[in-house]
Structure formats: structure tokens, C-alpha cells
């Protein structure tokens, strides 16, 4: 093994390397484990969980676009109880850091989910999704309203001693304003970005290609936007950032870390290359060797403007 140290810290959360698998793009870990060795991955962020199971949106839920895809899954998930009973046991065995992502339709639901799930030893941190663009009764309003995001952060903070990461919406004028508020309300870190709102039409039926009308845009198409949001937060707020958006290879991951991210999450790439996480981790090691540094954390926010 090379002597490169890939460890990073997100607040008090230690990760063996900065590569996480993003919520909604790795399920609860079991399916993807057939294609990749999850024990090598820095961390797994589980599919957004709500208090009760959610069926999700009717089809069609996804469509490919140039360099990206739109999704409107509608936060289909098994609910807290089933998550604890049938998903946590697998996650316990994985030997990776498990971050539990929570999405809810009310402040109370966020708090309740956190309160229940904080009891689970397997869960090392929470990522609070205040930014899912596909849920009509929740997400959107929260994510675009600074005071709502502040309230959720403060209340969730009060419900757990574990690190709290707030996942921010990119569909706002100044994402750094939101990062400031969540920091002041006690969040340990932010993750950015969730998907951009987008749509596509079938020109013959004149119907939206996605049943939900709009969906969330992810994939390499959004990488420049995601990088700009991470940089904006990094230049304006002193808080650890998890960078997300269009990462396809280790070069992309490095770009995010240079722009200010202490760790990264891989989303859409998992669908195309379920082993991407490990390839990226290997690439990061090689990069450190090439630029002659011993610890990956040296490159975090190392931008030369």
C-alpha cells in the first residue's frame, strides 16, 4: 500500500476516505454490494427515509437528457420502521460509515425520524434533505425558505448528538445564505447540491416525459453549477461541505475538493458504473502521489483564485 492518507473529517465525523455514495442512488446498500466492495467506500448515505413508507410517484419517473437525467422518484422509501427492521441489519455488516438521510413533510416529522433513528448505533450521522424537488407537500417550500431551513436544523440538532448535515437545494439565488443559517443553528456540515429542477416534453403527445411534470436534473451536465455552489459556500461560510453533482471520475472528485468540499458524494454515476466509488478512491491516491502530498485533506479548499 502507498503511504497516502485519505482520511477526512466532516465536523466530528471521521471518514476513512472522502468518497460517499449519495442518497437515492445506492438504495440501502444491498443491491449495489453485488457489484462493488462497500467496505472500501468512505460512507453510504441511505435513500431518504420518512416516518411512514412512501409509495413514490407513478411512472414515468426518469428520463435521460443530454449529459444528465431527470428523476421524480417521489421519495419512494420503506419508512422508518421497516428501515430499522430490514435495512439496518445489512448496513451493520458493511463496515462502511452509514449516514442516514431523512426527508419529511413537516418539522415534526423530521424531528420524530431523527429521534427514533438516533438510537441506532449503525447510523453515524444524519443528512437532512430539505431540498427534494419532487415532493409536493414537503421539500420544495422548506428548501427555498431560509427560516424554515433554520428551524428544521435547530430542531433536528436538538434531537440527536450525532453529526447533522443539511443537504441544500441549488435552486436558490444564494446558497451560501442557507449555509450560514444552518451553521448558526448548529449543523455540523452542509451537502451540496441536490438536483436542479428541470423538465422535458414529448413533442408528439405534448405531455411532460415525467409524470410528475418536473424532475430533478443530475449527472455530468450539472457539474459546473454544483462546483460553483460549493465554491460560493466555501468562500462565504466556514462550515465543512460535502460536494455532490455530476461526479463521474476521480478528476471530478478532486475538482470538488479543490473548490471547497471536504468529501464528495457520488450519485448518478453509480447507475452507470456501480464500482465507480472504488475507482475514484484509487484515483485520489494516485493524485496525491503525483502532486506529492501525503494527506488528501491538504487539497480541501486549496483553490487559487
Amino acid at each position, binding site marked *: 500500500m502507498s503511504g497516502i492518507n485519505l482520511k477526512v473529517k466532516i465536523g466530528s465525523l471521521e471518514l476513512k476516505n472522502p468518497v460517499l455514495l449519495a442518497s437515492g442512488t445506492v438504495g440501502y446498500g444491498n443491491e449495489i454490494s453485488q*457489484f462493488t466492495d462497500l467496505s472500501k467506500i468512505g460512507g453510504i448515505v441511505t435513500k431518504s427515509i420518512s416516518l411512514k413508507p412512501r409509495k413514490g410517484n407513478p411512472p414515468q419517473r*426518469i428520463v435521460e437528457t443530454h449529459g*444528465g437525467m431527470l428523476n421524480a422518484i417521489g421519495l419512494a422509501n420503506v419508512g422508518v420502521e421497516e428501515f430499522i427492521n430490514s435495512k439496518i441489519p445489512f448496513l451493520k455488516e458493511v463496515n462502511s460509515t452509514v449516514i442516514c438521510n431523512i426527508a419529511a413533510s413537516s418539522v415534526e416529522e423530521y424531528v420524530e425520524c431523527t429521534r427514533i433513528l438516533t438510537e441506532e448505533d449503525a447510523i453515524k450521522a444524519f443528512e437532512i434533505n430539505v431540498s427534494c424537488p419532487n415532493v409536493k407537500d414537503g421539500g420544495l417550500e422548506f428548501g427555498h425558505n431560509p427560516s424554515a431551513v433554520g428551524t428544521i436544523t435547530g430542531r433536528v440538532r436538538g434531537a440527536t448528538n450525532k453529526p447533522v448535515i443539511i443537504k441544500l437545494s441549488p435552486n436558490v439565488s444564494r446558497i451560501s445564505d442557507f449555509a450560514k443559517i444552518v451553521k448558526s443553528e448548529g449543523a455540523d456540515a452542509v451537502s451540496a447540491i441536490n438536483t436542479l429542477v428541470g423538465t422535458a416534453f414529448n413533442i408528439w403527445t405534448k405531455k411532460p416525459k415525467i409524470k410528475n411534470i418536473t424532475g430533478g436534473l443530475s449527472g455530468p451536465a450539472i457539474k459546473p453549477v454544483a462546483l460553483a455552489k460549493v465554491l460560493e459556500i466555501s468562500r462565504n461560510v466556514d462550515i465543512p461541505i460535502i460536494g455532490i453533482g455530476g461526479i463521474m471520475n476521480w478528476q471530478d472528485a478532486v475538482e470538488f475538493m479543490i473548490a471547497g468540499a471536504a468529501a464528495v458524494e457520488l450519485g448518478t454515476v453509480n447507475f452507470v458504473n456501480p464500482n465507480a466509488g472504488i475507482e475514484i478512491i484509487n484515483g485520489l491516491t494516485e493524485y496525491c502521489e503525483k502532486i506529492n502530498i501525503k494527506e488528501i485533506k491538504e487539497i480541501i479548499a486549496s483553490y487559487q483564485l
Partner: protein
Amino acid sequence: MLTEIAEVVTVKKYGSNTNLIKVHAPGIASKAEPGQFCNIKVSETNFPLLRRPFSICEVKGEHLFFMFDIQGEGTSILGCKKKGDKLNILGPLGNGFNTGIEFDTAVIVAGGIGAAPFPFLLSRLKKKKVICLVGGRSEAQIITYGMKNIYISTDDGSNGFKGTVVQLAERIKDKFTGGKVQFFACGPNAMLKALKQFCMENNFSCQVSTESAMACGFGICQGCPMPAANEEKYYLVCKDGPVFNAKDIIL
């Protein structure tokens, strides 16, 4: 399920728009079951971004065959592959046709490129009586590759019965005899829906291979829901399907 870098052996035209690609993929070939599919990366770049799902058409030794129509950019690229090119393939994926059940006569119903999974299935039904119904918009869409005991329908009547393949089934239903009859169907969801109706009315058991937009193909994106018939939930086409018992889903 595995990721295999498969070498292209041949790409052959079959009819006007249909292609048959043969690749060397020993790992997947050794595990594949009829009705399963593979998710194929058609390029080495990020364009097109997503993999493309294709039914496993035939397995011969260490080789897999896929039959596909040129639809858009993904299938165009696939159609241009040359001997020696490499394809990154995930597979075998999903649940295939259940042939472990008891039946004596298999009725195959294929709509257009829906013919793709049947050569593989038929290779496992050598001891059964088989009737194949093959439909298409017109003669050019009729694919009988690997079929036997064939009845044809076209929407425009340019070959065989004029009408849909389900209307054809209705017409010739007195031929569906010979012990227990099991339907196996693949084609557009609208065709499968009509066929389900026909089978319910006539009390035939029917397995359908369904289609859906897909991102991952193995259950992590939740992009491919199929409404369940008896529960307030969605199945996933890629993981719970693509083959379902017609009565379990709402088409």
C-alpha cells in the same frame, strides 16, 4: 450479476431495422436465464450517459446474443460496433420467465422487437409443445428469428392476419390445447395489457416481460415502477421483473 467487459464478435442485420449482436461474455453467459436482461454501456464516454437494457436473446456457450432495433442514439451506436470492440455489460439482471411451473403447451406472443427474449426461452422448451404468435405494425416489423410453429399478424395486413397479435390469439384460440397452456409474452405494454385481458377471460396463465425506462437496471434508482395489482405498492421492473405474472401487475 456481474460487470463484464465483453468483446464483440459479430453484428448482423436481421430485416430492415433489426440487428443481432454476438458478444463474448462467459461470466454472464454461464448464469443467464431466459427472460433476464443485461444493461449495456454502448460507448466508452459519458455520452450517452445511461446504459441501455436489452433482453438476452440467445446464449451459445460463452457467447451472448442481443437483438435490437435502432431507436435513438444508443442503439445507433450499438449498431455501428465492429468485431473486436469492447462493451461494458451488467448482467444477468432481473427475474426471467418461470419455466419451473407445470405446463404442456407454451404459447409465445411477441410484438415487434418483443421477439428478442424468445430464442433463449425456446431453447429451454424443447420438450414442450410450442405455438408462436408474432405481431408487428407491418411486414418489416415481423421478427420470427428462433421461433417455430409460427402464426403472424400485422396491423396493416401486409403479412398474415390483419390486426393485432391479441386479436390473432382470439381468432386461433381453439389451437391453444394440449394439456396445461402457459403464455409467455413480450412487447409494448399496451399489447401486454390487451393480452392480459384475453388470458383472464380465457383462463390462461400468462407471464409478461415488461418494459420501463431504466437508469440502473438493478434496483438502486427506483426509476422503473410497475403498479402491483393486489397491494398498494410498486414493483420494480428491473429487480422484481422484467417478467411478471400478468395478474400480479396493473398494465
